[in-house]
């Protein structure tokens, strides 16, 4: 049998090998005619009005749909592609954030703030390409895989009490979406390292080399984000193409050397900074596997218009001249490197001010000649970043451990009046606001108590709310979800939404370790579907389109997150069970002792025993004699009582003696010490 089998096996091996060779060859041919796997790295820098600098790293790897490479990739991280294939993830976003995005001074309208400002902690949402009944199972598995992949407790999102399924208020709205956040997750390097491992050059080369841990974590805000979209394969046999977008947004404070000098004029100038001063490192060339590697410097609309204003005053030049190539050396600031190209935002809406983008390709630089972009400010400039139409903030109202109110207040930002002004006079002009709010089940929200105030006037809910979708929370099963579309007049200055809640009670073992801190209510998401955060920069060559710039061009609705809230709930005295156990045990011990005594002791027998003892002590004739005499007298015989009486007498005597001796000892001690 064995002899017969062996040549057959060899034959089989040869055939398969040849087939495989052919298959691989075919695959490579196929790949060539299709798209290659790509990796792009980009870094966007932006000065912020409050003397800080924004650094936005954007790494994009894409794997085209193919049948060829099977489970193997050249550049694309295998872990991610496996994830996508296994759980049929259509789109997914995972973000780790520390700190808060300051919408007021860092802007709330541009693509960066709208898509990269995330709530503190972990946020995960995913759209699955599976039938409805399998979604929850896929989600659970996905959370566990991601938890292992990123060294984070994302697996807590597995429980049905933590995630929700928004219907339409979350921008990539679709029925297969699951959304969950962990506001209390601490973010640190252990989450960054696995994230960097997904890059082909890790942080050893290219722009990622700038990611110096101490300088990033010293910053005011950092958010690492992983966003993947699988393009979906047309045919059955092909794997889906995946685009993996990894961004890291950090707001850093350049430590200016001049800060120590308290010169009045110097103080007003923005601090000058460079890559080496904010990261402590320089770019020494690009990652060899990269398709394009660029550094951008973005001056936003407010800054540009302010600069133009200054420029006009100083040089008396026509505004059109500003957009020329030599704008990078101007009286207000100076760049240490010459940009290759200057893009000016194409925007019909804001004709008077459009942002300017400088492009610095990294290819030219090498180890010997590192790239170190620096901005040196020469004149004080004050500007404001563009704000979302309404600034949302959320807070708790009320006091006590019984009930409270969640209030979402929307305040109009004066800056947005400009672009709403065109049709603000129109009475029918409406500003649509989507509010998506998840509340944990122990915060029992009464949805009927929803109240709406517009411009400090209470309004009927039906007048303002166009559409509402509520799924009430189930105790220990699912959180409460509220999705609302508000229809506000364009001229609104302030609006508020209040909803009352009762604070629930948890079982003692459901409390988290730091129960007395309070419980978090995750951020609400406020989005404005009528407003799109996009910046269009026209590029010449459509072939080498920068992924970052094309990302900027996408018309995504303006989104903002509100604060995380902390609800103090009643907490039990966690040491109480031990006290109760101690007291109960004591009571039980006392009870059982007496019970056992009562049950065990046979009073009659003990008496007889005592009698016997007494009889033995006194000798047999006496009781006999007394018995006899009692019988003779015709009375019942009584046992002698002398013995116990004498013993008690002895006892009291003894006690007296002991007290006497102790008193003597005390006196002795007192007088002779």
């Amino acid at each position, binding site marked *: 049998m064995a002899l017969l089998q062996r040549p057959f096996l060899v034959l089989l091996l040869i055939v398969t090998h040849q087939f495989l060779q052919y298959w691989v060859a075919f695959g490579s041919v196929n790949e060539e005619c299709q798209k290659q796997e790509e990796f792009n790295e980009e870094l966007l820098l932006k000065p912020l009005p409050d003397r800080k600098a924004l650094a936005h790293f954007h790494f994009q790897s894409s794997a085209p749909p193919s049948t060829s490479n099977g489970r193997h990739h050249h550049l694309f991280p295998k872990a991610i592609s496996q994830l996508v294939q296994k759980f049929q993830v259509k789109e997914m976003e995972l973000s780790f954030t520390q700190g*808060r995005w300051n919408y007021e001074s860092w802007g709330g309208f541009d693509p960066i703030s709208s898509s990269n400002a995330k709530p503190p902690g972990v946020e995960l949402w995913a759209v699955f390409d599976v039938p409805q009944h399998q979604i929850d199972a896929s989600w659970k598995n996905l959370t566990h895989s991601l938890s292992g992949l990123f060294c984070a407790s994302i697996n807590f999102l597995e429980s049905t009490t933590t995630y929700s399924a928004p219907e339409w208020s979350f921008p990539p709205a679709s029925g297969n979406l699951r959304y969950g956040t962990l506001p209390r997750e601490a973010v640190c390097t252990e989450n960054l390292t696995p994230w960097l491992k997904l890059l082909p050059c890790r942080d050893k080369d290219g722009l990622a080399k700038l990611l110096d841990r101490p300088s990033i974590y010293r910053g005011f805000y950092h958010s690492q984000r992983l966003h993947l979209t699988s393009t979906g394969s047309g045919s059955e046999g092909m794997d889906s193409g995946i685009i993996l977008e990894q961004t890291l947004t950090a707001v850093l404070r350049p430590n200016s050397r001049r800060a120590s000098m308290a010169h009045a004029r110097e*103080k007003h100038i923005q601090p000058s900074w460079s890559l080496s001063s904010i990261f402590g490192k320089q770019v020494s060339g690009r990652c060899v596997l990269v398709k394009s590697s660029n550094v951008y410097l973005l001056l936003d609309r407010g800054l540009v218009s302010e600069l133009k204003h200054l420029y006009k005053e100083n040089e008396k030049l026509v505004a059109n001249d500003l957009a020329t190539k030599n704008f990078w050396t101007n009286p207000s600031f100076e760049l240490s490197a010459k940009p290759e190209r200057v893009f000016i935002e194409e925007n019909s809406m804001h004709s008077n001010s459009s942002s300017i983008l400088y492009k610095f390709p990294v290819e030219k630089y090498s180890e010997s000649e590192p790239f170190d972009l620096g901005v040196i400010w020469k004149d004080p400039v004050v500007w404001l970043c563009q704000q979302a139409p309404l600034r949302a903030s959320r807070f708790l109202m*009320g*006091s006590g451990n019984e009930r409270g109110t969640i209030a979402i207040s929307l305040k109009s930002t004066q800056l947005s009046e400009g672009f709403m002004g065109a049709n603000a006079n129109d009475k029918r002009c409406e500003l649509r606001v989507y509010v998506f709010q998840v509340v944990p089940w122990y915060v029992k929200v009464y949805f009927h108590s929803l109240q709406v105030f517009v411009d400090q006037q209470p309004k009927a809910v039906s007048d303002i709310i166009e559409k509402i979708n509520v799924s009430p929370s189930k105790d220990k099963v699912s959180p409460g979800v509220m999705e609302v579309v508000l229809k506000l007049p364009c001229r609104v200055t302030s609006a508020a939404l209040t909803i009352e809640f009762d604070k629930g009670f948890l079982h003692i073992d459901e409390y988290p370790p*730091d129960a007395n*801190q309070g419980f978090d209510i995750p951020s609400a998401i406020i989005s404005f579907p009528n407003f799109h955060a996009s910046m269009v920069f026209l590029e010449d060559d459509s072939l080498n389109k920068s992924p970052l710039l094309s990302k900027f061009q996408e018309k995504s609705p303006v989104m903002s997150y509100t*604060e*995380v809230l902390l609800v103090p709930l009643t907490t039990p005295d966690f040491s109480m069970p031990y006290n109760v156990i101690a007291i109960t045990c004591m009571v039980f011990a006392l009870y059982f002792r007496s019970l056992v005594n009562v049950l065990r002791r046979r009073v009659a027998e003990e008496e007889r025993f005592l009698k016997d003892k007494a009889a033995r002590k006194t000798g047999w004739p006496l009781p006999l004699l007394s018995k006899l005499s009692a019988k003779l007298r015709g009375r019942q015989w009584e046992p002698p009582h002398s013995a116990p009486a004498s013993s008690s007498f002895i006892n009291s005597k003894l006690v007296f003696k002991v007290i006497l001796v102790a008193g003597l000892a005390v006196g002795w001690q*007192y007088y002779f010490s």
Partner: protein
Amino acid sequence: MLANQHVLEGNRLVNDLTSSNLKSSETGIESQRIIARYMLDLGAEASIHKFHRQLNHFHPLHFFSSPDSGIIEENYSCSSYGINTVGIIRAPRGDGKEAIVLVTPYNALKSGLGEALSIGIAYSVFSLLSQVTWLAKDIIWLVADSRYGEYAAVSAWLRDYQTPKFSSLSTLDAEMCPDIDNLYDLKVNSITGSKFSSSFKRAGTMAAALVLKVRNKSDQFEDTISIYAEASNGQMPNLDLINVVNYLAVHRQGLHVKVEKLWSLLNSSWLKILGEIFESLGKVAKSLNPKWKFGITATEYVEGTATLASSLYYQALGLPTGPHGAFRDYQIDAITLEILPKFSSDKVRHSDILLRGGRLIEGVIRSVNNLLEKFHQSFFLYLLTSPSKFVSVGVYMIAFALLIAPLPIVAASLYVDASSLGNCSKSDKSTPSASLDTDEHSITIGSWMWLNSAKLVFLVHLWGAIVSLIPYVICQIPDCTPTTSFMIWVLLSMLSFLTLYSVLASPLSCAKASQEKEWALVKSVTISSVFIGLGLMSVINFATAEIGALLMVPMCLLARPLKLDVRAGTLRSFSRMIGNLVLGLIAFPPAAFFLLKGMLDGFGSVNVGAFWIWVESLWAWNSATYLFIGMVHLPCWVLCIHILLHTC
């Protein structure tokens, strides 16, 4: 660590404030501007908060309600508002869920150097905190405009923080008042890019609050900090907050910490003698066994007693001892720190105060900042005997329990005695051959006898409730001096008593035979009601219940008709009579008040209106002590007097 550079900045602000004070003091808006500008220079968010003075009215229906609901919309004018300046530092890497509040009361109209110094301290801490990286909680600095009182400003701000009103119909906008407009031209700070806003700024849930004051005129020989902790209804902040302040002040900054004492007790000789007895006992014990260390020195004992008495007194009063009381209404731990600098007049001292005070505040803020959970480990129910020592609820409850334990026993025994006495007398009078059913009938009547006295007790308590509602009516009378108000109150109370007495309670309706023991039944029911009242009050405000029990328990237990004592004529009954009379005098609430006030402040300052003012403050602060006096103490006193004057 707070360095000299921060102190210099603080000093600069103090100088600016004191000089601006000289320049324009007519509106006080200038100093608000200066403070707001300094806040903006640090990169903090500055905003102003306008509030209106809220007059304290007595709303009987809102007595126990939460602080937000008793607000009446009134027509305010520009003249009656105050402006709080609020600065917020956002923790650079924090998630903004929690905040620590620092409050400095400041009266721009007539500010002394002390208030400017307190602002200087707060500012130097604030400037340090705007640079540090360890902040996990946001810092709110509230410069409370104390022109209408410190408490009013802080509570107005807290009310807007915790329970804002979205629909405002009659509140005036900032634009209507011209001088507030001046503040808005601060706008954007060019250095830090931080903005000034008139809208209400918030940070997260408040973890703790510190109120900082500097009293300039003091005659201390060393830098001293006094801690005020009592909030309304005897609520105390968590003991850990006091411990943190005390530890840091004593061991880090070398400051002397004190809490309020009853100064008159310090010189009382009987306390000293008691203290000496304890001291010698302690010595004896120590000589017997060196490990026994329960002895304290006589001075320590006297001081501890004085502190304990004051702690008990302020808790019993139920009035907050400072602006921190407003925080306690929202379950936020807060204390007031008053810095009393060493007496000196030179300028160098200022920076020393700024440095030491600032470091203390910094340490406390840092301690609270580092806490993951809010204060919950330590006691909330305690009485202080010194800044570092306390009597906890487990200990003081024993004394109270022992004090009121005789009440139910005596009530029961009185009831049993009375009913058995009734039966005996009945059976004595009735002929032995009386039928069985009449005997049974008398027994049933006898066992329901107590209902009559219960009716009386109930009516007197009803009267007490009416008496405590009368001030609401008196408040409506315009232009009343305290003395006349008090007089009206007394008159109305007596009138209502007489009407009630004549209409409803006719104690003579009972049979003559039962009158002999009627007083015993009344006493029994009174004692039970007092027991219930004291028990309830000990849950609401222990200190009130304790002081009330000290007055009422002996009075209730001793009460016995004077006629009986006169009839007996023995020495024992005579002394009992004297005791009854004295207690009956002392336990009358106004009498007790005047006596106490006379003992503390001297009898010269006592006038009739003082009691009215005191009572007014009690109901204005929604103190449960007011209800206790009106509905437990006063009826009990009346009932005891009724027993004393009983005709048997």
